[in-house]
């Protein structure tokens, strides 16, 4: 996207102004030091140019006050840079509550994006303007990186665990996103476009979803039966495994006495590597599913488990069964 200002890409998210003013501050400091030192060199050049062949300079060995001041003064500036940068970064690493969650899966060399209602996109991402958007990032193979210059945000997409990033689009439009971590042959073309829409347009676009998209909750429910999760995880909690109703987002007590928050990463780990965190009061019976589920399937299962929040517990205690399973 060509910008109006030649040295800045377009500003289209809440982070863009903060990053740009940080940039301005650092440029000012840099210009100050570069100018001061260049000026000193040039002035000394003319003033102290060797006049005769055998001339020597005035022996000056040093000056303690100068040394201290040029240690302390830059140190203060450095602290300022660090502090300001830290504020922006900490904000970036801590998504606010109540975000619009999109799932992003990177694989050589394309991006798969899933909207909360299950609508899927490839190398395209639609988001509403003014809403806090959180991306949950997963990779099927190597490390990728989701980068939107106009939003001034990027985050590595690391196989084996979830990273999250967030932003709030501030301006409707069409913006480039790139893969910014080298990932093999077609790394350079592993990009696409983010479309920022007015909320009403976005809602319309979402509902215009074609029937082919499988709702992840439905897909997850199906998998839950197929992978026989449902044989242990009875929804009334009478089975060998804890009921998953209302687990997501809550706090789980573990066998070793510690507690964790049941977020995406925890659910993922519980599925792939159950012995890592054992729920208090249960045996480590659950088989590890590592290597048997794709990132997409894990996300569907997670979406399903997440949806169990609101579902009433079936009165029969028969657990969640889906008619027509294999």
């Amino acid at each position: 996207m060509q910008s109006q200002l030649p040295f800045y890409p377009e500003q289209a998210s809440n982070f863009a102004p903060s990053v740009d003013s940080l940039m301005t501050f650092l440029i000012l400091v840099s210009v100050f030091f570069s100018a001061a030192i260049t000026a000193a060199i040039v002035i000394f050049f003319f003033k102290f140019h060797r006049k005769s062949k055998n001339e020597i300079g005035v022996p000056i060995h040093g000056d303690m006050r100068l040394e201290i001041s040029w240690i302390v003064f830059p140190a203060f500036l450095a602290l300022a840079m660090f502090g300001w940068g830290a504020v922006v970064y900490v904000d970036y690493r801590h998504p606010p509550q109540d975000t619009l969650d999109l799932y992003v899966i990177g694989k050589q060399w394309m991006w798969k994006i899933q909207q909360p209602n299950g609508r899927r996109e490839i190398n395209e991402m639609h988001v509403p303007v003014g809403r806090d958007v959180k991306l949950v990032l997963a990779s099927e193979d190597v490390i990728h990186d989701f980068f939107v210059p106009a939003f001034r945000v990027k985050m590595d997409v690391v196989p084996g665990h979830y990273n999250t990033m967030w932003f709030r689009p501030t301006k409707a439009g069409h913006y480039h996103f790139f893969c910014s971590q080298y990932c093999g042959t077609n790394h350079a073309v592993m990009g696409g476009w983010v479309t920022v829409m007015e909320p009403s347009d976005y809602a319309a676009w979402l509902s215009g979803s074609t029937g082919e998209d499988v709702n992840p909750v439905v897909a997850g429910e199906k998998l839950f039966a197929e992978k026989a999760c449902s044989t242990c995880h009875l929804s009334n909690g009478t089975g060998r495994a804890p009921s998953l109703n209302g687990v997501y987002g809550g706090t789980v007590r573990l066998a070793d006495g510690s507690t964790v928050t049941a977020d995406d990463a925890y659910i993922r780990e519980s599925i792939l590597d159950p012995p890592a965190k054992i729920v208090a009061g249960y045996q480590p019976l659950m088989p590890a599913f590592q290597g048997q589920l794709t990132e997409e399937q894990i996300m569907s299962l997670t979406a399903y488990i997440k949806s169990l929040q609101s579902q009433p517990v079936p009165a029969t205690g028969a657990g969640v069964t889906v008619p027509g399973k294999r």
Partner: protein
Amino acid sequence: MHRTGELSGQFQTLEQQKDSATLGMWIFLATEILFFGGLFLTYTINRHTYASMFAEASRTLDLKLGGFNTVVLIGSSLTMAMAVWSAQVGKKKLVTLFLILTLLLGCVFLGVKAIEYKQKFDENHVPGLNFQFEKNADQATNAHAQLFFSLYFGMTGLHALHMVIGAGLLVWLIKQSMAGRFTPQYNTPVENVGLYWHFVDIVWIYLFPLLYLIDRH
């Protein structure tokens, strides 16, 4: 470490030459700490992530053989130290004797290690070669157990490689010692190989509990 104990050209005095050799050896050992350090870091992170799997896998190792080897290796450190002492006090025969003893103990260690490796091979516990942890272990269990055994072979293998190099150095020392080269004035090679040998011992002192002794209860 100069072959004959004469002064080599770049030095002014024998004192300086010896000083340099010792300093060089210690610096080399410092690099070795960091070299093994990378492995220990990898080990720590994986053991933390897969704690129960590591414990389970560790229990398949032969504690008796491992313990025996620990005793053997520490014993060889003792004989090595004695060899240095003999050289320092000028007992030329004893130097040779203790060096040979050290070499023998080193070989015993390597022999036992070979037996253990053979067992692993028979149990399909060698990563990269049809690794199968237990009969019906699922994919994830296999992968995590394989991590343990990769580290086991990586760490003990590198350690064994150091032992082999040490054994080579010992052979070289023994030859010189038999020619009566080492005297109270000139024994830097014995001392320096000694330092190396003790270092290799220390590595094992850490490997033994980390690999063989995870939650043996």
